[in-house]
């Protein structure tokens, strides 16, 4: 592990860069995923179909293809001049949102239909019904599966590094192994540890959130 310790700076700065990607992507994919789930359970057929189409397209496309599409296809086709960091993060958001959507939708379906009926009978609009009655109850049951989606996303963020974002955990490995000429095994192990710190922390946060929500029932 000596090469890693000698170049700890490289890994630490890589960790912060990767964390930045992860935090933006988590926020973005949760927001977009919940919006898509709202589309899919809405009474408006056009929105339902839009949501279903999104999930069907994105969920069935390999992550690398989605990321390459955003990293290289979008700039070439639309003249977008964002850096890889932004493009990669957007790609990760777009990909992960499909899974968040399905996870949230399963939670919505698990809420007793009578809850939404009672809300409708009171005169709440669809949006109020969702935000005040259905989603708060759905999000409880949705924490564990959505947590898994987010942890998978943290790991997927390594691929964003692989397509060209500089300064993240994965490019720390590349720099170590090629430019600096260290052995590959310890170099990649350092990167793996960096990701473990993120995923294990995410898991711990999830447990706390889950416990909090169980208490407030």
């Amino acid at each position: 592990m000596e090469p890693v310790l000698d170049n700890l700076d490289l890994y630490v700065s890589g960790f912060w860069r990767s964390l930045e990607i992860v935090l933006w992507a988590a926020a973005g994919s949760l927001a977009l995923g919940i919006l898509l789930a709202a589309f899919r359970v809405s009474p408006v057929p056009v929105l339902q179909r839009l949501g279903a189409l999104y999930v069907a397209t994105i969920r069935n496309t390999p992550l690398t293809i989605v990321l390459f599409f955003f990293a290289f296809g979008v700039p070439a086709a639309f003249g977008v001049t964002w850096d890889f960091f932004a493009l990669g993060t957007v790609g990760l958001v777009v990909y992960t949102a499909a899974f968040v959507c399905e996870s949230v939708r399963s939670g919505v379906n698990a809420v007793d239909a009578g809850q939404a009926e009672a809300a409708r009978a009171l005169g709440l609009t669809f949006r109020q019904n969702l935000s005040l009655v259905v989603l708060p109850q759905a999000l409880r049951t949705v924490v564990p599966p959505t947590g898994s989606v987010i942890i998978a996303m943290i790991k997927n963020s390594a691929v964003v590094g692989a397509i060209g974002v500089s300064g993240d955990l994965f490019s720390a490995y590349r720099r170590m192994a090629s430019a600096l000429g260290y052995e590959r095994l310890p170099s990649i192990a350092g990167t793996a540890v960096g990701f473990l710190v993120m995923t294990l922390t995410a898991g711990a946060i999830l447990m706390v959130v889950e416990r909090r929500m169980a208490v407030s029932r």
Partner: protein
Amino acid sequence: MLRRVTTPEGGATGRTPTSREPLVVMSGVDKHFGDLHVLKGVDLVVGRGEVLVVIGPSGSGKSTLCRTINRLESIDGGSITIDGAELPAEGKELARLRSDVGMVFQSFNLFAHKTVLENVTLGPTKVRGVKKADADRRGRELLERVGVGHQADKYPAQLSGGQQQRVAIARALAMEPKVILFDEPTSALDPEMISEVLDVMTDLATSGMTMVVVTHEMGFARKAADRVVFMADGELVEQADPETFFTAPRSPRAQDFLSKIFTH
């Protein structure tokens, strides 16, 4: 889909048994569930201040009838107006109209993640725009009125079925609705809790609230109803004041139904 079906026996008694100002007017209401024709051209007028009890065998369409009044079930044909306004199909207009129609469900359907008081104040604050302090005060009054004032800060799951249903009634009352629909409000309750709910409903009936009550509680129908409607196979078979209906039902189907109920 829009074919009108006239009911051969629908006019067993007159169609205008009430001299009250009409509040809910259903005319020629048709409803299908797939191949099943659950409402067959139903005509029904509920007058302001009237307590209408709907009875009939299970599967007769009485719950569906109740649920079409605030469009929790859509209809395939005919029309329903409330206080002169036609029920819109969906959207904000429908939501506004629904806020004037209270509903009490068989399975209570209290919001599980909200306290008892929050259940009662959610509608007034979010739909009517009442200030929270005012809604809270009024909410506590209503909970007091239905006898669960001391439970205000608990969650629904901590209450008995009878208490939950009384909270549900308070929740409906908080919107100051023009009419309250009761869809088998005591059918999910343990026997010893039925009377506490019926007592609240009887009080409500005496206070002049317009009520449509789908129930199997014949005692309540006798005591509190202004008019009883008997439904079978998606049709209004017979309607009369409770005394007449229970002592001298005219249609064979109502006679049969009542004989089965009162044999033990």
